[in-house]
């Protein structure tokens, strides 16, 4: 496989390979010179049909730390806003010699279209498509969880999965690409996932997903949670009758101060609180929760660069044998996945 489109079809070996490579990349970030020559001369295009400064600069930083040339192509104010089709945009980028396209698109499946057509031959990384998937977000979340889970067990992150970890994901699952990517990846890594949401914000068909579903956040916390991930809720969902008011939503499904205290009362001293950002403070997460020592929000952002470096590196620099020759990013303990590429 030459693309990273979803976590649904990502094998455990490949997922761990990405996470392990990200650990190596993180080590580079701790050095004085935070740059590798691995992708020198390669061109990475950030093709963003939807505004997302956070994701775009994360990918940009990742590509630059690998010495790739980066082109940022924002659909707004470009030929795309003048009616150019995805096909023509893709062919244009191909003609310019793009080696990888990082695509963010409001339409579910747009990265699949780029990867499955002959419009462009570049590696495609899904940076979030509609309400479908956001695989690098799930990978950075898993990376963050794995570091936490491993440190609790006094073992090394590298090579580990998340077996036994209890993860709750609360919020607008229906419209969340983050939730979908996390459910598939966390299943693959052995975690136990519970989705918590109002019934209106769960998709029909969720009963087939490899996770538990709850309408009650307090009961879920009482059952024991090692990582509590809050999803962003759009206030405008209120206007479409998904819930009566933002206050009611916040009371029932928000991670407020009372629930933060409840973690202590329940003896869940090691539970982390996660959020993919940007946060609606006071809606799905209280400021006290977001700023507490349990919060991994900034660690997630930091880890995002490492994970995206790993993804770009593995997609663009070929097999793991090559990887072993690259200073600072060598990994040879992924022999079991040598035959696979991601």
């Amino acid at each position: 496989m030459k693309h990273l489109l979803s976590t649904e079809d990502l094998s455990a070996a490949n997922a761990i390979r990405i996470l392990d490579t990200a650990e190596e990349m993180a080590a580079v970030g701790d050095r004085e010179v935070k740059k590798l020559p691995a992708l020198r001369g390669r061109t990475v295009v950030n093709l963003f049909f939807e505004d997302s400064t956070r994701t775009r600069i994360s990918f940009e930083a990742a590509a630059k730390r690998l010495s790739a040339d980066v082109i940022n192509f924002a659909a707004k104010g470009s030929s795309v806003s003048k009616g150019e089709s995805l096909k023509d945009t893709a062919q244009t980028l191909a003609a310019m010699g793009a080696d990888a396209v990082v695509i963010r698109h409001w339409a579910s499946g747009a990265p699949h279209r780029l990867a499955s057509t002959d419009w462009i031959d570049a590696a495609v990384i899904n940076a979030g498509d509609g309400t479908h998937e956001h695989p690098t977000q799930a990978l950075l979340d898993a990376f963050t969880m794995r570091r936490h889970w491993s440190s609790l067990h006094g073992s090394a992150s590298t090579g580990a999965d998340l077996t036994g970890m209890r993860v709750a994901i609360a919020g607008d699952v229906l419209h969340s690409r983050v939730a979908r990517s996390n459910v598939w990846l966390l299943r693959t890594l052995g975690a136990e996932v519970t989705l918590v949401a109002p019934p209106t914000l769960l998709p029909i068909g969720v009963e087939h997903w490899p996770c538990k579903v709850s309408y009650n956040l307090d009961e879920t916390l009482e059952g024991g949670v090692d990582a509590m991930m809050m999803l962003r809720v759009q206030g405008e969902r209120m206007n479409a009758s998904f819930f009566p008011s933002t206050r009611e939503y916040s009371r029932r499904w928000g991670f407020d101060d009372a629930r933060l205290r409840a973690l202590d009362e329940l003896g869940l001293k090691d539970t982390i609180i996660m959020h993919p950002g940007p946060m609606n403070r006071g809606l799905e997460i209280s400021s006290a929760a977001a700023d507490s020592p349990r919060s991994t929000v900034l660690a997630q952002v930091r880890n995002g660069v490492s994970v995206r470096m790993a993804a770009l590196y593995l997609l663009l620099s070929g097999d793991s044998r090559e990887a072993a020759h690259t200073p600072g990013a060598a990994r040879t303990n992924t022999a079991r996945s040598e035959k696979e590429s991601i």
Partner: protein
Amino acid sequence: MTETATGTASGTYLIRGAAILGGDAEDLLIRDGVIAERGAGLSAEGATVIEAAGLVALPGMVDIHTHLREPGREDAETVETGTRAAALGGYTAVHAMANSNPVADTAGVVEQVHSLGRASGWVDVRPVGAVTVGLAGEQLAELGAMADSRAQVRVFSDDGICVHDPVLMRRALEYVKAFDGVVAQHAQEPRLTAGAQMNEGAVSAVLGLAGWPAVAEESIIARDVLLAQHVGSRLHVCHVSTAGSVEIVRWAKERGINVTAEVTPHHLLLTDELVRSYDPVYKVNPPLRTDADVQALRAGLADGTIDVVGTDHAPHPSEHKECEWAQAAMGMTGLETALSVVQETMIETGLMTWADFARVTSTVPAAIGRVADQGRPLEAGEPANVILVDPAARWTVDPHKMATMGRNSPFAGKELPGAVVATFFKGHPTVLDGKLNTPYRYAAEPAGAGSE
């Protein structure tokens, strides 16, 4: 050339040894636009002989649901190209849906389409009139004027858009009784399907595409059969796609409600699993459903709950499909694959015979559309709208080899059974040896009916 009452039928044809409706082999002698004789060992004198051993003779197929796109979207299809495709697919009549541009909501537009059909001469083109002005769902179009026009419209539909206003639907159902018309409803509750992209279920949940719930179709059908019962009108339900819809139609028929229902070939074969590719060739309205729905539709067609197969042939220019799923147009081509798909799903599965096939693709759709001279028995004295089918043939679908301008066939690359060998339209072979021959040429319209 033989001059007939309405036009020219070129020659006399002896179809030798065809299995009539899949039954015993007999000969059919076609002369002067009619089946002159049917029987064994007919004389070939003066006739062009077509050896039909191994072939099945069927009445020309009648499509109750075709989009010919003209006027307005001649980049997608024209009456000429669409009716060529129809002839090749075994059709001798098609109902051209009203969602052209301008909309077929006046006598002028339906007469234009009717005239284009006669000029092409490949099949009977029966225009469908819009129920409401501009398909806007607000005001009844001049249904009577369309009925009285040269196009003699009997089927009225806002297809593509549901007549969702219950009062307007009631009035339309009542009003068309004045000229023996029928309202063909596109059952889709608009609020429940705002922004909908695909069937709502396990697959849409994973793909993150906005769901199109079965209930949006079923609730409208339930309402409409009750309305039809209340006002004593006949109702036709376009392209039913869910198991629940089949149940509701079955219930309505048991109560004696005058409702007919249609299923498309693609809903008899394909499921929403295909959407996992995000390839918009699988984007269609109503959407592809689940395997349970497919099985219920097949059972419903076999037991007569669903009356007819309608193609919902919907050609689109390639740029409307070479894009993101959400941006893509809805619709699939179907005229040139319908026979094969129905053979694959209904006949090769043992659910139906060729006689049943003739009922659901010809006899009943002609009756619903009140199309004279179509869907008739293959008997002496009947109009010679006849097709010959090779049921043993197998072929691989290649949209680039089709006569339709649309390349959006969901069956591309698929091997299917059955091939149309010949199509006789009004006694004239529009298709011979599986290839287009020549169109039928009409004489001038009867005096007083206007000129073309």
